[in-house]
């Protein structure tokens, strides 16, 4: 039986990854996710896994590339500026169809920005991030328990689709301590058999793992194959939570830390008789566009809340497709909206 313990989000990522069978971690220190790197340095050797403090983010993600093609469940983590550096390797992972899990505990940007929590890497996370036509499954957990559960799902989906999966948290989620139950792995891991990894060509033909495809038409064929996978992800992997949307006049859309604050605002305005609901995307890619589209013709308006200058709001507008107004309230540069600010905005709109 798993026990309920008090842990910070960054350490929970580490323990949940280990319980999900992760046996390779390479990372580079950056605030606000350093607890994770330190946790992995201590726990990986205990589990017979590998921990490497890499010389750079570029090297860390490439080490993950190597560990993944050798068959390991592998991960890396960072925060915004470091994730920008990892985009090179993430594109290579996607092109080579290698599973991996990447964690971004977002901080204020652009540039070095600050170390306060932010959600301004949404575009980078959900639109590919690096060069080429690809997507990652992106999870936006809103609390430490959900973070623990999504880590396991992330490794499973990465293996199933042979594609990297990104956990998009923020500095608050990483630093915050909450009671959490981490599912302990019992017995052998139900990892799919990997008949494509490189182990040395013993008793079989050699295997090549590469993304360079020069023959005319072949790269387009490869890209079509990748797009087919992304289509299946869009059909099968969308996760969201909704509350009070059936009779709502206004619906908030928010993810992660913003969604927690938006829920507090929701309770404030509901007590005043305002019929408000919330849609909280859990997968940011694939995006829960259908539920948003479905309600858009019967409500007054949407209000999107983000710790950014307005990024996810574009996906909401695409889903709504002009059927009702989509408003936005955001704070940037490490600013965190308060429930009062959001409630005031809701009252203004109605």
């Amino acid at each position, binding site marked *: 039986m798993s026990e309920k313990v008090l842990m910070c989000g960054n350490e929970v990522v580490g323990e949940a990854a280990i319980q999900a069978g992760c046996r390779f971690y390479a990372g580079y220190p950056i605030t606000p996710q350093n607890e994770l790197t330190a946790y992995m340095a201590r726990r990986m050797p205990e589990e017979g896994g590998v921990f490497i403090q*890499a*010389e750079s983010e570029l090297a860390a993600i490439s080490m993950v590339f190597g560990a993944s093609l050798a068959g390991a469940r*592998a991960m890396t983590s960072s925060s915004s500026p470091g994730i920008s550096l990892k985009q090179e390797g993430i594109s290579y992972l996607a092109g080579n169809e290698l599973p991996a899990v990447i964690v971004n505990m977002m901080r204020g940007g652009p540039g070095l920005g600050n170390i306060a929590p932010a959600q301004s890497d949404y575009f980078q996370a959900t639109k590919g991030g690096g060069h080429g036509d690809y997507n990652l499954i992106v999870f936006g957990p809103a609390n430490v328990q959900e973070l623990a559960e999504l880590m396991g799902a992330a490794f499973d989906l990465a293996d199933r689709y042979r594609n990297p999966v990104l956990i998009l948290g923020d500095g608050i989620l990483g630093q915050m301590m909450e009671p959490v139950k981490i599912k302990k792995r019992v017995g052998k891991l139900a990892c799919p058999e990997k008949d494509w990894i490189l182990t040395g060509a013993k008793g079989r033909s050699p295997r090549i793992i590469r993304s360079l495809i020069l023959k005319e038409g072949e790269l387009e064929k490869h890209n079509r194959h990748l797009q087919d996978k992304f289509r299946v992800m869009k059909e099968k992997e969308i996760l969201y939570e909704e509350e009070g949307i059936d009779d709502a006049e206004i619906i908030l859309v928010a993810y992660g830390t913003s969604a927690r604050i938006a829920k507090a605002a929701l309770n404030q305005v509901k007590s005043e008789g305002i019929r408000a609901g919330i849609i909280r995307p859990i997968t940011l890619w694939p995006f829960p566009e259908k539920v948003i589209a479905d309600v858009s013709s019967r409500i007054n308006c949407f209000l999107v809340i983000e710790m950014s200058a307005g990024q996810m709001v574009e996906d909401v507008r695409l889903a709504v497709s002009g059927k009702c107004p989509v408003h936005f309230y955001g704070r940037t540069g490490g600013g965190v909206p308060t429930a009062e600010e959001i409630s005031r905005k809701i009252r203004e709109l109605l």
Partner: protein
Amino acid sequence: MKKVFSLPESMKDVWTHYCPGCGHGVIHRLLGEVIDELGIREKTIGVAPVGCAVIAYDYFNIDMTEAAHGRTPAVATGIKRILPERVVFTYQGDGDLAAIGTSEIIHAANRGERITVIFVNNAVYGMTGGQMAPTTMLGQVTATTPGGRDSSAGYPLKVSELLAILPGTVFLCRTAISNPANIRKTKLAIKKAFQVQLENKGFSLVEILSPCPSYWRLSPKEAKEWIEEKMIPNFPLGVIKGNLKDA
């Protein structure tokens, strides 16, 4: 009749894309022979670079992968740490290893990763069209040093000497494939570098001075002479660290 010469089992029976007089073909062959002779074909994993040898995996009959430009030693690190009983090598050019991948090679070496690096130094970027490499000679004309390299573009980088001060490096050797004697020495050095890995001793690297007639604008014969006359005085041959004993 006794067969005295054949294709190594570690190589595929295919044509390569390399230019006439290019050194990669010879070095591939030496590598294939060494892998055969050590009996490690079925447990060897290679990492190809970005550069002229980018599709080396099409020529070797072993498990191989690619790496982002310069990250080759980092990819090899990930593989070797997960599969410590396998033999892992990188095959890198001077742009991949000594420019964009300087950080990765120094730190893989400094960690004493149990990998073997085949470093092909031909003093020029080949695949992109003959631009200056970090190992380009002073005065050498390239697409990006039309008046010849001067020191404001840096001096020819001696990576093997740089790596020699790191405790994690066990065997470092510079050879050339400018004549049959040097080719034989190159094979010995490659074999020794793999033996160091098989004995789990640490990091090993062989830097091979190799001709690029296309971008040196020389005939294949002249290119070999150019190695002897221009490159070797700047990049002295021999064991830089460790010894060749028992190879």
